[in-house]
């Protein structure tokens, strides 16, 4: 098997051209490995080879961004490598941003696998960790001998489309994708160890950093309900009997939209729940308990509400990720707006 073709992107410093005074040099394509490229050559062994190196000054890249991007992309297009690597940049800010920018570009524009490496506090890390794999390094070049083998290994995995392990296993910065893996110790022991550290004031690493939880402010109160079309929306899984769209009992991949024109009451033989997270006995006996069509029909008759919207929207909230729920609601909220619905009663279970 022939070796995979790799392009390596580095800055003027690692190319041995010079420091800050040479940071304005233009992009240059050289054949073979330069500087840290030698370490990559060793790490790749007989699997891959750096055929070309692109060198660019950090100031030039950041001050002539569009031009630099075009020039570098041109080099990559010409060589058509199997893998594009950049850095590692450690804690060098402009170099890190350049590595991230160019990797992101090569990956999205040319579809070529990319890998870079940097320190977690490098500004390039925050900007690009969710779009390209960034191997986590220490904050100085002393870490080169650890960083290079990790980058080479993960890079090859990406090229070969092998499954990527959790960030902690493959050494990349957490990228917002949660990946399961088997840890060395069971969870209870990890919890006890973490608590002992926390109590002693020693550093510890949480396994799940808390997200910024999105709060939705409530709308203004409706002054006159008798003029308003009210819709029913539920995460309680109420569906026509037989669950015609096969909404999953947990981790729903879709929502249902069902017409209730002329339906005055949900009965045991016409509606049921698809939800697997609660005892379905009472909802199956009378689905109005979760989706109160009967009561709203009475309100409609009594003139308490304008009317009940002729469609309802439903899914199972059970085990369904917040991301999926948000996507469903975004879609049917537009339909509700289009149908001039003025209020929604949202029921859960």
């Amino acid at each position: 098997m022939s070796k995979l073709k790799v392009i390596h992107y580095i800055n003027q410093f690692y190319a041995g051209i010079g420091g800050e005074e040479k940071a304005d040099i233009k992009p240059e394509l050289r054949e073979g490995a330069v500087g840290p490229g030698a370490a990559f050559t060793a790490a790749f062994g007989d699997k891959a080879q750096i055929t070309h190196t692109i060198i660019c000054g950090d100031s030039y890249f950041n001050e002539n961004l569009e031009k630099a991007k075009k020039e570098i992309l041109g080099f990559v297009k010409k060589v058509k490598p199997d893998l594009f690597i950049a850095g590692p940049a450690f804690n060098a800010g402009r170099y890190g941003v350049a590595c991230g920018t160019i990797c992101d570009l090569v990956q999205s524009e040319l579809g070529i696998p990319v890998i870079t490496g940097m320190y977690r506090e490098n500004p390039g890390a925050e900007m690009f960790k969710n779009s390209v794999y960034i191997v986590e390094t220490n904050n100085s070049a002393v870490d080169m001998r650890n960083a290079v083998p990790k980058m080479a290994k993960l890079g090859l995995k990406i090229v070969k489309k092998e499954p990527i392990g959790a960030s902690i296993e493959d050494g990349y910065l957490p990228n917002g994708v949660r990946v399961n893996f088997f840890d060395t110790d069971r969870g209870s022991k990890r919890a006890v160890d973490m608590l002992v550290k926390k109590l002693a004031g020693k550093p510890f690493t949480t396994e799940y950093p808390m997200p910024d939880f999105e709060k939705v402010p409530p709308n203004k109160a409706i002054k006159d309900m008798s003029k308003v079309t009210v819709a029913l929306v539920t995460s309680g899984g109420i569906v026509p009997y037989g669950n015609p769209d096969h909404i999953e009992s947990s981790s729903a991949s879709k929502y249902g939209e069902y017409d209730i024109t002329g339906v005055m009451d949900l009965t045991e033989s016409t509606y049921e729940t698809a939800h697997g997270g609660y005892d379905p006995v009472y909802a199956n006996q009378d689905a109005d308990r979760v989706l109160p069509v009967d009561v709203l029909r009475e309100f409609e008759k009594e003139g308490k509400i304008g009317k009940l919207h002729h469609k309802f929207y439903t899914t199972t909230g059970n085990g369904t990720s917040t991301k999926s729920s948000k996507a469903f609601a975004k879609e049917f909220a537009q339909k509700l707006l289009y149908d001039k619905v003025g209020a929604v009663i949202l029921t859960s279970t």
Partner: protein
Amino acid sequence: MNLKLGYIQIRDIQFAKTSAIKDGVLNVNAKELEALVLEDENFASVKFDIARPGESVRIMPVKDVIEPRVKVSGDGDIFPGMISKVQTVGSGVTHVLKGAAIVTTGQVVGFQEGIIDMTGLGAEYTPFSKTLNLVVDFTPIKNLTPHKYEESLRKAGLRIAYEIGKLGKEITPDEVKEYEFLPLLESIAKYPNLPKVGYVQMLQSQGLLHDTYVYGIDMKLSLTTMLSPTEVFDGAILSGNCVSACDKNTTYHHQNNPVIEDLFEQHGKTLNFCAMIITNENVFLMDKQRSSDWTAKLTKYLGLDGAIISQEGFGNPDTDLIMNCKKVEEAGVKTVIITDEYAGREGTSQSLADADPAADAVVTGGNANQVITLPPLKKIIGSIGHVEKIAGGFKGNMAKDGSITVEIQAIIGATNELGFNRLSAR
């Protein structure tokens, strides 16, 4: 309280004419057990089977898993308030039939029972692929309501485990572990320089087949309270759950609560394990507020320095978890919480239904939405009928060759929130 657990290592289970343990082999007379089960008129019939580690066997749908134990000396008896009389347990000597488990199967509601594979990829995700399982497959009488069926099924499983456990009473255990849990003031006096640590166990109590029993009391009816962790080893806490398989605590999980074991492991070394608090996960906001207030109040009253809080279930109980964590931290007690994640099949969603910056020390049992394909296995114990409908399944998830694709939430104990497994996520 002082409890000695004597572990009798079980090497195999065999059907035999006489029930007994001989040289580590558990011999079971199925006829006798059948007669015992059929004393309950809610059952039409019952079948017994044995599933061993490595065998090409899939057990489904699983209701509960129970470890056979017997009280050799000390007050009370195993499963107090449910199978035996109410009397405080947790001291004396208890024998454990290590390596054996009673697995009950029976479809109660269709969605909420899980899978145990004894071999293949699925086996890596459930601890019960490593136990020798006496599987009991129940058929109820016609028109039995799910609630009655659940109760009968739960009690029958416990009764069988109790009977089998008794076979170990006279056997000399292979290993004995001693657990001592002192009254609070004595514990503090004994370890004045160690941080005082408590364990807050949240018990599933959403009701309607999501129930946990403590000394026979349905936990949703209880205020947050305390007990000795050694009581848990004697079956003081029992599962009555029909919820998603991956993160429900079976009775076996309670009997072998790993948080208790690992806190005891560090007791007297790096910490002083001096309190266990149990609280519920009720559905009403008022109940959540009351229970989490009491949890925080107790941790403060006890003067704890730190606490581990474990969750059961997901979604709705995420709010209980975060309320407990936040309030306990506000009371000046440092926390570590154990949970699991629903980050979507791609792993890109927010993982919990609630969050707070106070929860800065989290242990995760993994992403329950991860999809895996379980290979076809030769033998099915129970029935495969609901594989599309169970929580974690979906339409068309069974291939022609019998392999099934599910989220790991369909596998019993896969993302357990007592920290029973090595599975984690990043």
